[in-house]
């Protein structure tokens, strides 16, 4: 046994004494990651959300205060109460969830046929199509959303095309409406829907579809009874990847949406940078997290169940 072996052995036994097994170490890495990059920032935001705003640096009151009879905790729920008082916040939450929900459905409707087609095509066409799906990631997201302004504006590419084709006489007002937000979201998040759907559909055993046809089912019936239920895990995975980030989306509504487009990401931005009310902004963020976690937990449960069935 060499020295370093002995050393390794000692380290291992030491770690074991501290409660780390080999398996524990494997889990320890992601645990540490979550701790540093999720839990600690979350606690910081949580702390700020129960503070009072101050004109100071940083612009909020400290959590632990030293008084005449030692340290005490100074926390308030008034920021959360404020979220309930001003209907702006409830409206923004509701509108964010609504926009996220409908964009998820739209993305699913557009993405499913595309994923299905890619999964059913042969190599090398399949690889080429997959490459085309991820190709947009190679340019900046901001630039791509910005490009949509040029396409959608009153004297933009789309209106120019439609007018020159004689389909419309007056330019359509799309930019700075919710429609533009939907277009931008569906465009941006489509790959996140297509890729998990593709990964699921490509595994679908073609003989199941043949068996269904053989037993007398029409192609439509086969789709709804076999293909769709078996692709449910893919649908749920893709929907989560779209729904969650869209709730907090800021860039797309800021660039493509109008003054009426109310989304929680925009509200958050305004509180932080325009009003410099960090405690309220933090409360908005925490409330949003809770608003997201609950539906996602239901989706996760549905996904686990769907996977068990498939």
């Amino acid at each position, binding site marked *: 046994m060499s020295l370093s072996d002995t050393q390794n052995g000692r380290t291992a036994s030491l770690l074991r004494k501290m409660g780390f097994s080999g398996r524990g170490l494997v889990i320890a890495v992601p645990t540490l990651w979550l701790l540093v990059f999720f839990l600690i920032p979350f606690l910081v935001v949580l702390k700020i959300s129960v503070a009072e705003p101050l004109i100071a640096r940083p612009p909020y009151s400290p959590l632990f205060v030293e008084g005449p009879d030692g340290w005490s905790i100074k926390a308030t729920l008034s920021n959360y109460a404020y979220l309930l008082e001003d209907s702006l916040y409830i409206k923004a939450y509701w509108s964010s969830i609504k926009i996220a929900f409908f964009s998820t459905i739209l993305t699913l409707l557009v993405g499913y046929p595309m994923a299905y087609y890619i999964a059913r095509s042969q190599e090398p066409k399949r690889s080429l199509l997959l490459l085309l799906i991820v190709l947009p990631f190679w340019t900046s997201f901001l630039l791509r959303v910005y490009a949509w302004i040029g396409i959608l504006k009153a004297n933009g590419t789309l209106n120019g095309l439609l007018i020159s084709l004689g389909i419309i006489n007056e330019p359509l007002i799309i930019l700075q409406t919710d429609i533009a937000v939907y277009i931008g979201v569906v465009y941006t998040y489509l790959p996140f829907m297509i890729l998990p759907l593709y990964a699921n559909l490509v595994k679908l*055993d073609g*003989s*199941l579809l*043949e*068996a*269904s*046809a*053989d*037993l*007398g*089912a*029409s192609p439509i*019936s086969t789709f709804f009874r*076999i293909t769709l*239920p*078996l692709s449910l895990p893919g649908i749920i995975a893709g929907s989560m990847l779209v729904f969650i980030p869209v709730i907090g989306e800021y860039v797309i509504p800021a660039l493509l949406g109008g003054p009426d487009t109310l989304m929680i990401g925009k509200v958050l931005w305004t509180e932080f940078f325009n009003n410099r009310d960090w405690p309220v902004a933090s409360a908005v963020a925490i409330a949003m997290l809770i608003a997201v976690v609950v539906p996602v937990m239901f989706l996760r449960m549905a996904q686990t169940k769907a996977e068990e*069935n*498939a």
Partner: protein
Amino acid sequence: MADSAIAAETKPWRSGTAEPFIRIQNISKIFGDFTAVDDVSLDIYKGELFCLLGGSGCGKSTLLRMLAGFETPTQGSITIDGQNVAGVPASERPTNMMFQSYALFPHMSVEKNVAYGLLREGVPKEQAMARTAEMLNLVKLGNFAKRKPHQLSGGQQQRVALARALIKQPKLLLLDEPLGALDKKLREETQFELIRIQESLGVTFIVVTHDQEEAMTLSTRIGVMNEGKIVQVGEPEEIYEHPNSRFVADFIGTVNLFQGRVDVVAPNEMRITGTEAGDLITKPIEGLSAKQTVSLALRPERISISREATSAANCIPGFVEEVAYLGNLSIYRVNIASGKTIKVTLSNLDIEGEPITWHEDVFLSWNAGSGVVLTT
């Protein structure tokens, strides 16, 4: 249920006048530049359990898939019970298929899998469920109705697939390697189960297999395929005893093949010269010309083995290289002067006295009528 006379007993193909139930006429299937099925014609009769037998890649599944309607023939026509099925989609054909992988719907219970065909046909739910229960009893899965396919063993899954394919009472059931995924013992039991079910329902079965023993056990008739062609059709015994080519003789069971030239043809006897076992005497066959190259196919059990020379038409000396004891029979590998190894099987019941063993000098003998003369 079934016709009182089943095809296995009436043997309608022997009559020459019976109307075939399924007519396959000059069917070909070409994938790109590869001919998977090559000008196959085949008549199959009602109530038959017909086996398509051939090695991997010879086009068996492709032929079956054309019958089911999953592949369109490049050429030729298929008639099922008088109806030309060209252009009829799989969902509307009077056939059902049991897939090699079983293709059970993983998200549905056993019961829902089996009822699927009836429900798609519009049979009322209650009636469909009653018939499903009946069918599950037939395949002895009555207690497993609520399970999911992945909770069943391979043998149980196989029976679910069979029940699902039979529930619509198809005119023709197509089975692609139905026992291929089962282990040997289960496979043997299931073979008889399959025959029982086929005979009790009277449905015509076409079974694809690459296992010649399975084909021999199951079928009323066997169609042997090679490179997309049907090379011989016949009852199991006929194929075994009278193969029409070296390929069939070699594919079905074990055979000793001797190649030589036709020498003297007499009314009752014929001589083949220049084989690895010297000159051999056989029964003559028609249509041979002098000096034509032919093969003699000789089954191992047709050869007898003895310590002394015999007066049989053919008797050649040899040396026992190896003996394998298989319980009911023994297999001898005997080397002859030319160096060729000849396989001989002997039923252990027939052995009298001290059995012949390794490294003994022996004589192999057989009669003129024991082998089959093959020209191709």
